[in-house]
Each structure stands twice: as C-alpha cells, then as structure tokens.
C-alpha cells in the first residue's frame, strides 16, 4: 500500500486523526517557531513580572502567562517544542535503535558478540539510570545533542532487555527456521522477517519512552546537567517552576499537558500504525 493510502486509513479513526493533528501541530510549531511565537522566548519583559517579582497569569498580552523571569510562556513553549521533540524523538529514537540492535544481535546472532552485548546490558542495567545520566552529563559538556546522547545511552538498556527476550521467542518460531532452509541469509531473516514482528514491542517502548525521556531531560536540567539555560524545553520549564505549582499553576500545567498530549498522540498513532501494518491482525478482534 502506498504511504498516502496508509495516512488516509489512519485518519479514519477519530482519535488517531486528532493525534496526528496534535503531532503535526507540534512539529510545525517547532519548525516554524520563529514565525509563530508571539515574542522572543528569551526576552525578559520588564512588565512580565509584578512589581514584587511574581509571574503573570494568562492574560491578553501574554496568552499563557509569563514565567519566573517575565518571559512569555507561550513563546517558550513553542520554542521548547524544538528541544523536546529532539529529545523525545531523537534521543528516544537512538535509544530504541541501540536497544533494538543490541537486543536483536544478542538474541538472534548469539555467539560471543551476543554474549558480550548481553553482559554489557546487564552491567548497564545494574546502574540506577538517573545516576548514570548525571555522571555522564557532568563529564561531557552539556549541550542539547550531548544531553540527547546521554539520555539515549541510558535508555537503550531496558529496550535491549525486552527486545532480547522477544527476539529469542520469535527466532524459535518455525517460519524463521524455514527461512534458513530456503537459503536466506541472516541479514535477510533479520530485516525481512524478525524485525516486523518486533515492531509492536518497539512501538510501545517508543511511545511510552517519549514522555519519560522528555522528563529525564528535565530532571537533568534541574540537576544542572541538562540543556543549558535559557534554552527552553517543556521539561525544564516544568522543572524550573515545579515548586510554584500552587502560586503559578500555569507554569506547570501547560507544559505538562503538552507532554502528556504529545506522548499520548504518538501512542495512539503507534497503535493504529501497528494494527494497519500487521496483516495478521486484520479481521480479528
């Protein structure tokens, strides 16, 4: 089926259509931030704070209110989408990629390489993830891409573990053995037969991972080893102002809703995509 067909099919479900729109809007906002954002995200407005220094709630000038430095929250959220998408998609994506690679290699190719990889995974898994991320980020000079890399380096482990056991289960299915008797190479079996079956699992981790990576970035920022200020990200907007959740709810609420909405949307689309791409589910309940 063509890509266009697929999208048309996905749009048939109302919730999926909504999710796709959310994702598109966020991506568009990130890409065109400089055109859409009402203000410079780093501009600290003199009248963006009360005389006592409190941030302003949503009003007609600052639609979503201002932050603790008197900056326009809406603009920061729009620019923050860039960071958060990079983290949520790139970092998470790399993590899934590495995890899948390692899990599949260890589970399918086995041998000493597989063994080594699995031992490494066990070792990495024994680290408390947060601690590892902090240490890594503190050693490498934090920049957006370094942070993304650090998050990927921490997050691939669980994926590898899950994919590993899944791979073993699928590799023991008969049709894989059959492929061998047909003379298929290992690579062919991997890409053409094994990976498609891993897709649902990968999808679940990828979508659930979006929000957790976005939050992990925020935690790192909070610990001073994340994306450096004043670069906004949804996570660090929340974390910067988390103690203000009673006095300035908007600083926590809006980015929070965005994170949940985005990862939920990815999840719904992921589920739908999986159903569409998995022919063995067709006509079943």
């Amino acid at each position, binding site marked *: 089926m063509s890509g266009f067909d697929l999208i048309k099919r996905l749009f048939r479900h109302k919730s999926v259509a909504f999710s796709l729109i959310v994702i598109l809007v966020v991506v568009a906002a990130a890409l065109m931030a400089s055109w859409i954002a009402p203000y410079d995200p780093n501009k600290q407005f003199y009248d963006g704070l009360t005389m006592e220094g409190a941030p302003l709630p949503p009003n007609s000038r600052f639609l979503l209110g201002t932050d603790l430095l008197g900056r326009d929250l809406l603009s920061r959220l729009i620019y923050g989408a860039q960071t958060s998408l990079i983290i949520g998609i790139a970092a998470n994506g790399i993590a899934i990629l590495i995890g899948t690679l390692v899990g599949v290699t260890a589970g399918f190719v086995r041998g000493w390489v597989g063994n080594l990889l699995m031992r490494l995974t066990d070792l990495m898994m024994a680290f408390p993830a947060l601690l590892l991320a902090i240490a890594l980020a503190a050693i490498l000079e934090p920049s957006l891409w370094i942070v993304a890399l650090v998050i990927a380096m921490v997050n691939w482990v669980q994926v590898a573990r899950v994919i590993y056991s899944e791979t073993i289960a699928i590799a023991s*299915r*008969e*049709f894989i*053995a*059959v*492929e*061998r*008797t*047909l*003379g*298929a*190479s290992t690579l*062919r079996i991997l890409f053409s*037969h094994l990976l*498609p*079956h891993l897709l649902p699992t990968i999808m679940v981790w990828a979508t659930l991972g979006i929000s957790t990576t976005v939050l992990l970035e925020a935690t790192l920022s909070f610990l001073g080893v994340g994306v450096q200020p004043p670069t906004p990200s949804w996570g660090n907007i929340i974390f910067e102002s988390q103690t203000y959740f009673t006095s300035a709810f908007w600083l926590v609420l809006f980015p929070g809703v965005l994170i949940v909405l985005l990862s939920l949307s990815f999840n719904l689309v992921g589920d739908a995509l999986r159903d569409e791409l*998995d*022919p*063995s589910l*067709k*006509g079943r*309940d």
Partner: protein
Amino acid sequence: MTVPASANVRQTLLSVENLSIEFGQGPSRKRVVDDLSFHIQPGETLCIAGESGSGKSLSALAIMGLLPKMARLPSGAILYDNQDLLSQSEREMQAIRGQRIGMIFQEPMTSLNPIMRIGDQMMETLKRHRIATGEAAWQRIRAMLDAVKIPKVSERLRQYPHELSGGLRQRVMIAMAMLCSPRILIADEPTTALDVTIQAQILELIRELQQEYDTGVLMITHDMGVVAEMADDVVVMNRGLVEETAPIRTLFSSPAADYTRKLLAAVPRLGTAPPLEERPEKPAVLEVEALNVRYPMRKKSLFEPATEVHAVNDVNFELYEGETLGLVGESGCGKSTTGRALMSMLNFEGSIKVRGRDIRGLKGSALKAVRQDIQMVFQDPFAALNPRKTIAELVGEPLLIHGRGSAEERTAQVAELLGKVGLPEADVMTRYPHQFSGGQRQRICIARSLALNPQIIVADEPVSALDVSVQSQVLDLMEDLQRQYNLSYLFISHDMAVVERLCHRVAVMFGGRIVEIGTRDQVLHNPQHPYTKRLLSAVPIPALDSKRDFRSLLADSQAPDPIRPKGQAIAPSQYDEVARGHWVAIEA
C-alpha cells in the same frame, strides 16, 4: 425432519432443533451453520462428519454456550433435559457445563492450563460442582485417571501439562470431561492431532467410559475411519448445511447425498491401494549413512554426568530418483529430526549425501547451493509461513534469495507455481496466510518448496492437518509433480493409508531407529517387526463391520528412554534381510 427409527425407543437426551449460527452484520453477514438438527440418546454416539470449516466446532460450542461473542443465533433451540439451553443465563449454563455436559477439545497441546498442576485442574471441576471435596475428591480423580489408563496416577496429579505427551494430555482431557459423570460428552476431533496408536487408545477409552456411565456422546471428526469405528448415527455437514443424517449402516451402505458419496470415495483405505508399477533401477539422489542426532541437555547438578537426547540413532537409507520413501512411526520417534538433519537445520553425525555431495559441515554459499536441490514442506503450514507476508512474497522469496529472474519474471513464476498447486485465482497473491484454510496453506508451502525446482522434497506430515478431500487433492498434486519433474519425496507421516497410497518404499521408525524398511507391499502387507504390526493394527478402517479391538493397545508400549549420558556410544543397528530389499531390525 424425521427421527431415525432406531432412536425413538429411549428418551432423548439432547436435541438440537433448526440451529443456525451467523457472524457479522449487514452485507458481510455470513451464515456458518444453517438449520442443523439432531438428537442424542443415552449411551449412543452421534458423529458429526464433514470437512474443515463446515461448522462442526461451532455447533458444539453453541451447545456449551461458548460461542464467540460475535456469533449470533438467529434461530433454533437446544433442548437438554427439556430445558432450552439457549435461554439459560450464563450462571445457569455454568452449572450445566462440566457437570451435565462435558467437552473435549481438538487441541490437547493447548487445551490445558500450562501453569496449573493436572490434579488441581481436575479438582477445580469437582469443587465447582460440589461433587466431592477433600480426600473423596482425590479418590475420584485417581479413579478417573485410572479409568483412562494413565500410568503412575499419583505422580501425574502433581505434574504440569507440558510434562505429559500429547496422548496423555488428551486422556487427561477426557478424564476431566468425564469427572462429574456428565450425561453428554462432546468430543471435538479428539484424536486429530495424535498418531494412530494413541488415537486407537483414546477411541477405545471413550467407548469404555460411555458404556460404563451410559453417556451420550457427540463426536466431531472428519475421519471416516473414526466414524465407522464409533458412530451409531451420523450427521454429515458441508458448508454449514446438513447434507445427510443417517444411522451408520445406512450411511456406509447406501449414502443418500452426493456429497457423502464423494466424501467416502475420497477416503484412503489401508489395503486398497493399487499395486505398484515396476520401476526401473534409478540412481540414488539421497544417501543417508549412520545418521545420529543428539540434543544436548543441561546438567542438573555439578555432580551428575551430562546427558543428551538420542533422537536419531544410526539411521541408514537411500532415496532414489523419482521415488517416494515413507517414514512412519509414533510421535517422538525421530521422524522430524531426521528430516531436519537432511535440511542441515541441526548438527548431526554420520553422512548425508545429496546427489553425491556430503552436506555435513557445509556453510555459506556451498550450503545455499545444496538448498536448491533439497527442500522441505513442514508439518504445520501456519507456523511455517510468516504471517506478515503476502503469498506472493512468501512463494517468491526463494527465487529472490537465490537471485533468480527479474521482479516481473518472479511474479510470473509465482503465479505459475500457485496455479500448479491449484490456487490460480488472481487475488491469492496479495492475501496473507491467515486468510487461507489449512489445506490452502499447505499448498502454498508446497508451491514455495517447488520454487527452486528441487530434486528432493522432504515432506513432514504435509496432509495430517487436512480434510480428506483436500488431502487427496494434495496427494494428487504431489504425485503429479513427481511425475512431471521426476521428484523424490521423503514422506513423513503417521497415516498408514496415506503412506500406502503415495509411497514406493516405507521405513518404520521406533525410538530413533529404523526398525523395518522395504517396499510398500513388503512393509505394510507383510510386516515383520512387532512394532510395525502394532502400528498397523491401530489404523481404523472406514468401512462397516470393521470395528477393531483396540483393547490390546491400551497397555502403553514403552519406547526406550532417549535420554542417555553424554557421549555414550550406541550399538549399531543389526538388520536381517527377510526378502530382497526388506530389512528388519534384530531386537537384542
């Protein structure tokens, strides 16, 4: 409709009246059972026969109230003990299920909870229906397991399903269904997945239990041999419709419906195969010498010696060009392992020569080259097909792998192959495996194995899962192809009648060894080895008055324990040539 004359004497236990079952709504509505009626009396057996997809299982499930949620019942009534089961609430049905009506399912391997002990699974039924508790309940369970002739009952109670063989599991299922002495036992293809000796044992058990408890049995099967063996009355179904309802005698002596006649004609009968034509000496395409396969087992403790499963022991045979060699034997005797060794799917000792080339230790492109000469059709066609690929991709894959032809050429070739196996429709190519019936899937597998024009095809029970009519289609196809391409088959099966029909020579395996090998007539019509004899006596005959006495088979014949210490050498097999080319193992 008419009530069969023999049935009106006793009171009717269960009657199904004008039952219809539908799936789907609106235009996609599909009626899968249409106007089905029958009656069962105590102590009687009613068989529903018919091919796959004719609605047999759904009818049984309807009686149990276990139809899938999507199914609807637009008409009909099911009367048990003068109550209409269809109008009972779920709660009331729960009280009937298991206690009044017991059911045995088709799949012994998957029908028991894998993580619950056998004893507990049985106990649960007794507790639910408040039949017995405590020691009395255990007593009853043991007695029932004894009744189904399960050896070492006390041990079994503590075992889990996977620790039992398929035959034993099916016996547990029967014991469980009979535990509350139900008035009616529904057995949905209780023996389809089992080999003949075990099938015979199970059939015998059902008969004995029925006599003891005066149970009415509703038996579903597509095996006319089983029908002949068991039935008092028969309902023949086809595509949801009842073709014929008749007492067994009437059915076999004067079938009324065309369909029934066709069905009966399609059934292979042991001993009815035409004599083989003389074949000239042909060169051997496959030579197997001193084949041994061991599966390693992990050590239990540091101090115990390592063990391994001796799955195949010193097997020797040759396969000649254009010939079919049957490999028969009970489950676990090493048939599939032999086949897999031939395909280099596992490590083996000894030598396997494919057209003179020893394949042992081959790797990479050398192995890939051999693959073009030898291909395999697997036992379970569904498992062997990647569910996410279209048929075109699946059948075309060998061509793609071996780089044969351009994309268009391949498509054309796939179409041709599908035509050959009788799936000519255009839309077949774009469909997925789950959209085909079992027989069609098997044909797809055959098409795939033919793609590379191999010399040899190893066929592992290719027709066991199929209906008789489909089965004969596939067998015809195999014969055609053999003639056309001078193919050689290694045909693994447990169905003697099929083997008789197709094979030129037959090898009988037992405990990893070949115990008897010779031409078809030598082995099947003049068996010499006791095991071969036992095997043949277990085959049900689809004809009247051919009921066999399976009782002698109930005592389990014990195959030698295949688990031995690692590296233990086994004595080579000794054979006696009783006739030219007819070798029989000498038992130590």
